[in-house]
């Protein structure tokens, strides 16, 4: 892990997801911010970019695909991971086109997300 903390943002309209991820990633050295509202999350990203964004797919207002598009437009370096309970092949393909880093179906094992995030950190530009 880098000397300066990796910045991780989580947006999911169900608070429990953020709570759990904060508990886990906070204690292994990530600077983690969690949101239940995608508008507020995007505002935070506009203020200071994040290295990794974990977003829910189905949300009121701005959904996960839209979050992905806007994050990629703001900062192409950011790796976006989409988590969802409804992963249809169509959305997966769409997300893929928009440059999603990974897709995870809920409920997912913590190990799986950790592995994906570690992989994201090892890709260009993010490695410590």
């Amino acid at each position: 892990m880098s000397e300066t903390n990796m910045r991780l943002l989580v947006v999911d309209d169900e608070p429990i997801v953020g709570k759990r991820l904060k508990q886990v990633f906070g204690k292994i050295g990530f600077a983690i911010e969690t949101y239940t509202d995608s508008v507020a999350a995007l505002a935070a990203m506009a203020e200071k970019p994040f290295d990794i964004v974990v977003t829910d797919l189905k949300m009121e207002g701005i959904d996960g695909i839209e979050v992905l598009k806007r994050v990629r437009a703001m900062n192409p370096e950011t790796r976006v991971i989409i988590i969802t309970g409804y992963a249809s092949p169509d959305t997966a393909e769409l997300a893929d086109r928009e440059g999603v880093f990974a897709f995870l179906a809920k409920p997912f094992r913590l190990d799986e997300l950790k592995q994906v995030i570690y992989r994201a950190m090892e890709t260009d530009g993010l490695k410590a």
Partner: protein
Amino acid sequence: MAFPSNPFSSATKADHSSFAASFRLFRRLLTLNNAVLEKIGRMEGALAGEYVFDRKFLSEAVAGLNELVREVVSCLGSLTSNRYLVLYDRYEEIAGKLSGLALEYAGPYDSHRTLTYDLLNSDFEELVGGKNATLSEIRNRLHLRTPDGFAITVAAYREFMEANDLFARIDAIRVAPGSSRKHSERIAGSLRQARFPEQLVAAVQDELAQLLKRAGGAVPLAVRSSGMGEDAVTRSFAGQFHSVLEVRPDLSSVLDAYRRVIGSRFSVAALEYLGSTTGSREVPMAAGVQPMITSRVAGVTYSRDPEAPEKNQLLITSLRGAAHDLVSGHRQADRFVMSRTWPFPPLTSEIVMPDSFLAAREAFDLLPSGLRRGSATLSPKELSRLAEQALLLEKTFGEPQDIEWALEDEPVILQSRPLSLPAKPPPLPGELAAELAAAIPLMSGKGQVAHLGIAAGRVVHVDQNTDPEQFPVGAIAVARFPSPQLSPIVWRAAAIITEIGGPTGHLATIAREYRTPALFGTGEAVKLLAEGAEVTVDVENKQVYQGIIAGLVRLHDAEQDDYRSSQELRILRRILRWVAPITLADPTSVDFKAENCQTFHDILRFAHEKAIDALIHFHAEQSDSQEELSRPVQLPIPLKLRVIDLGSGFKPEAPSSGAIAMEMLNSRPLIAILQGFLKEDQAAREPVVLGLRDILSGIGKPLALLTGPAYPGDNLGIIAEHYCNLCLRLGYHLNVVDAYMSPDPDNNYIYFRFAGGMAEKAKREWRARLISAILSGLYFKVERTGDLVIAKARNLDVPRMERVLVRLGELISFTRQLDVRMRDEAAIEEFFQRFLVSIRQEQAGEEG
């Protein structure tokens, strides 16, 4: 989960038989069984912390479970001609509860005005407040003593406040000019004039009568505040809410006391503490009504010494008399600082000389030994019992505890709440990484998470015969099999690791109830983790390190409570309570009935047991019609065995009718069992293997197994490539083996039933006991009633399945001799003992 190969894939005569139809239902039932267990596993995994989940997951999981279990019930109905109709009712009731919980409808108790402690646990905090919920958790799940009692709920409180329009009036008072004191006085005036709604009065009256009946008469009562989050916040808040002691056991006194408890929510101190931004509707107040506890000694335990929280010690203070004397701080108390390591040696103690006139004489008397009478309030045994409970409460609630207790003969816990200590920063990621890099892993990546957590301590090997009282509290229990008998050990252990089993078993549920970190199904923990070794277990990462990894332990301590107390976890726990536990543990019990199924797991268990019964009895009931379907097997021993092939049970080149040569059998479990039967022969050619002949020759009584008495009657095997159901009437014994053996250990099981015999009862029982011991050594979970032995093993891989089935064959083959040939009980026992030793040797050899 689907079975890897369908035993009916090839057309056979049996396809058309009713047996095949039953058998197909049975297989379907097993598949459903696995699917449900897998779902429960995921839910328990989510509860344990292995999965990240959300509310959608909860409602989908419940919908899925309801569907699967409905099919289980209807499968059993078809198999048994609807013999257990009441099971449908049980299903409907449980499924209805689950749907309600998942949709967050009001729970079954949410509108109750009063609730007895026996119905509650920590998940009811929102309804009954922190103190009631915590005490009930301690009482009902940890099975420690607490006062009996009932809660007057938040629903009752709201009803009272609304009926008298008090929330609005209080808000109006509080925005008016004036001090907190003035506000509080005016609020108290309003409360005094308020009337209790009739239904509330009736509920309290009813509950009170029952409480006094349980207490055996009109005993004095305590009416205690039980606010929302009262115990969870800082200690400075804890004293603000009121408890009324020595309340007379009549309705009007109890209601008066209740009114005073409600009043304490709006006392000057509480108003100032909560601040002007906290509305009157917030921080609702429940109350608890309990008999006063008379005690010889009372005190407080801090599970960590607040004066030296970094040291491995705890603090107990105590004085003679009742608990409130100590809490109010009026009198000086004895202080005992003790090690937190079992058996909790005392480190220092300060004993106060008794200050009363009455006690003075006693203190200066000399004992017959010539020594002065010890004036300490607590004996060493009592101290260690208190220390043990403190560690258990700390483990359960996930942080150091401040425990109020009273002691007559056994401690009664009056309250347990978080002990606020200066927060220790978690180790920096770099520090921890360096410590872990230097650590020696003893076991890595093995097993399944049964309950998350990190623990450090000494390894103690345990099995179902270990005396729990001898198990050191705070040690790491390591067992081969997650036997339900280990429950009291899980209670005492800092963590438990097993070789067999997974997150859905009974013991895993127990581990979660006691919040004991648990890693199950590791395969070889007993060998890798030596007795007495100090280790650190990190369940989440499936690592066991040599020695104490301080950083990991600190990390665990620093974990936040935010997630643990979330509503979703609470709902999941409530759901699982109607799903996961097994309350019908013993199929031989008279209570093993459909109407007694309390949970989905009970329904599964019941259906499984009755489905096996249906299959086993099929042969007996339909013996005439089965004749033409079955074919004799040619064996080199005098065993008349006929088999029915359900599919791929014979080799493709086998003739299509007539007797079947043993070499033509393709049923792997049957072949293994027959190998055991024939092992005598092999043992002669392979002297290395310790076979029956070796054992028997040592007894000095040669037994000609191959020329023994003919097995009376036909025996039947129902076989497929991976399956065998064998009913053997050997000698005077009836043995049933039902086994499924495939490359996927998840599907594998062996069911073995041993019963009968003509010897006198005591001898038969003794044999059953010996057989039980042998089977326990072979991964079996054994239930024995009299001379009936039922043994089950699950989830073994192919080599283990084969080994166990061969051994089972040997054992069955031997038991048929017992009544006929062997008169010498000592020789029989000798045989069994040596058989047991040889199993252990073989096991050590294989796994070494």
